[in-house]
């Protein structure tokens, strides 16, 4: 009994005023809805940031104090107590921490976002994917603030970066954002049904952190892997590793340090920029597919959101 007006234009994405509510809403249309709500997304990111630091005096400074404290503690433990021998360890560490902080904060905040905004989800109609994506957006703002700490550290130590690798950094970040968005969307929807997910995630993230070459260099693990008959690229299966390696290679600069020592310390693989781009590009393709799958999953789970909360 379709009326001619509504029925005919229902599939025309140009006419945004026609809406179709159906359980069979394709991924592309869902993404188009999210795009149409981009101003809302920006407003939600701003809300997120504003609410987070609403009554604090230092406000955004907290965003920068967090990595600064990590830095101090890890420097104390690894450089001074354990004497890992990596020169300018703070800069080394910051490379990985920047990436990890973004990833872990986005995932843990996005996971609870649907439940935390239950009032909205139950009473207002909007593309719900913007909620986890707003968590990604807020994470990006924090990332930029923390990157300022990094830039300051580079200037203070007059540390030379590896400029030939600089162009890989934006690619790595695009990949990181895509991957985080895909996981954020999927986790936020799943957490509506299985609330344990948010607690489980904390443990997973803790293990994941130590399985990523952030505190220790990549090349400290590779010999062990080879000794145990595992291929040397095993660690690259961890989707965060390529991002961390690129940032380290570019900003920390040197793949081998203590050259004057009889046994120089090898930190990073000495791959060419193009070689390093390969895992990133694979990652971008894979996480785009993953994002599509996540949005599809979100759409399937969304049908019962309102009554599950």
């Amino acid at each position: 009994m379709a009326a001619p007006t509504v029925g005919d234009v229902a599939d025309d994405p140009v006419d945004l005023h026609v809406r179709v509510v159906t359980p069979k809403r394709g991924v592309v249309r869902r993404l188009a809805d999210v795009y149409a709500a981009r101003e809302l997304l920006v407003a939600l990111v701003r809300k997120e940031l504003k609410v987070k630091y609403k009554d604090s005096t230092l406000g955004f400074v907290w965003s920068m104090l967090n990595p600064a404290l990590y830095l101090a503690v890890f420097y104390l433990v690894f450089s001074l107590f354990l004497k890992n021998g990596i020169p300018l360890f703070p800069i080394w560490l910051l490379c990985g921490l920047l990436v990890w902080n973004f990833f872990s904060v986005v995932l843990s905040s996005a996971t609870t976002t649907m439940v935390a905004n239950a009032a909205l989800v139950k009473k207002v109609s909007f593309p719900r994917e913007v909620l986890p994506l707003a968590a990604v957006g807020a994470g990006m703002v924090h990332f930029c603030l923390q990157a300022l700490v990094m830039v300051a550290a580079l200037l203070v130590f007059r540390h030379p970066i590896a400029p030939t690798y600089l162009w890989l950094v934006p690619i790595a970040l695009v990949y990181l954002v895509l991957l985080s968005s895909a996981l954020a969307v999927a986790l936020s929807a799943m957490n509506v049904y299985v609330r344990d997910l948010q607690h489980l995630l904390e443990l997973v993230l803790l293990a994941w952190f130590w399985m990523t070459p952030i505190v220790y260099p990549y090349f400290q693990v590779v010999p062990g892997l080879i000794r145990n008959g595992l291929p040397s690229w095993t660690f690259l299966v961890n989707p965060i590793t390529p991002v961390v390696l690129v940032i380290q290679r570019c900003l920390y600069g040197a793949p081998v340090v203590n050259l004057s020592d009889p046994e120089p310390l090898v930190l990073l693989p000495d791959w060419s920029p193009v070689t390093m781009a390969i895992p990133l590009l694979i990652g971008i393709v894979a996480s785009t597919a993953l994002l599509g799958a996540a949005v599809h999953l979100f759409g399937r789970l969304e049908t019962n959101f309102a009554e599950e909360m």
Partner: protein
Amino acid sequence: MTAAIVVDGVTKRFKIGGEKFDSLKDRLIHLGRVQPTEFWALKGIDLEIAQGESFGLLGHNGSGKSTLLKCVAGILQPTAGQVRTKGRMSALLELGAGFHPDLTGRENVELNGLLLGLDRKGIASRFDEIIDFAGPEVAEAVDRQVKFYSSGMYVRLGFAVAVSIDPEILLVDEVLSVGDEAFQRKCMNRVKQLQGQGCTIVVVTHAADQVRQICDRAAVLDHGDLIVVGEPPEAIRSFREHLFATGRGDTVGDLLDDPPVLDGEEAPPSSRRTLKVKVRKVDVRHPGQPDRAYLRTGEPLEVAISLETSEPIPGVNVGLGIRDVEGRMVWTSNTELLGAPTGPIADQATVTYRFASVPLLDGDYALHVGVVSIEDESVIYDWIDSMTGFNVLSTARVFGQVDLPVHVERT
């Protein structure tokens, strides 16, 4: 006729369990053992609402009317079928639902506007109008966090934002009964103004009066089925008939949202009732139609009041009042005024008021019974408000409260 809303075979299934197993542990423990009960809130609804039409969805609690509205709004997704809507839509399901307590009124207006689908420019240009509509109290507090707002201010701002987008489709779920009376009137005026601009309106309610007041057409839902779609009188009639048929509407209280507010004549506090004579029972009968639980306009009505006294008494004055839903007295009198004294009562007696014809139009009416001394009206034996009542369904093509015999001629 172009359709603004097309509901096409919409089915909604809810899974309801005695308990909800949200945690992983519970899910694992109960894996495969607990079959959630399925509940069909909507069973294949087909409905078309034209552009500019005002449509009412009637039904008792659990009939699926709110679920249908939420599907149209896109808040719930149907299990099968689809809803197509054309036009900017605003849903008034809960006023101020999107407000964040830590943000200021101004920030919330912006966020809420975006949630409703406006862009920032659109919100900026409407901002003053929104605040103006919400009233001076809100205007003054616009840069304060809304957690410091009173619930009234919250609701007013919520409504103001929702209607400010000049919706082409407005969905209303029984929210027009919030706020103070003046604001309700303002809301109703705004709804009527939108109606005048050709806005399509869908109202979910169980108040038949609202449907009569606003709607061009109405549908009745029961247990997820669409029973009737028609003009308001027809739909209301079938809504009531259905209620009575299924035994849900046998007391007038079911149909009254709130107990009527008495105007002027307050019911005396129970401490003032001596209970020397007690009202044991009030029976409402429809002579000639004993099986039907409602009257048609013009039919006779009998109200039998059974009294009981603890000691013989020379007589009592038994009063009866009929009030409409809003608590206005439609008719009242007593046995002394009517010149029908009860005479002495030894232990029990029944006083019956017989109305040869009830000329009232559609509505729910409540009965009030008072028993006072014949010597001194201020000595109250017993007094009962709205214990029972009756319903009238009108078939007449007249509106208002009373069916006056009328004849129109042109000279």
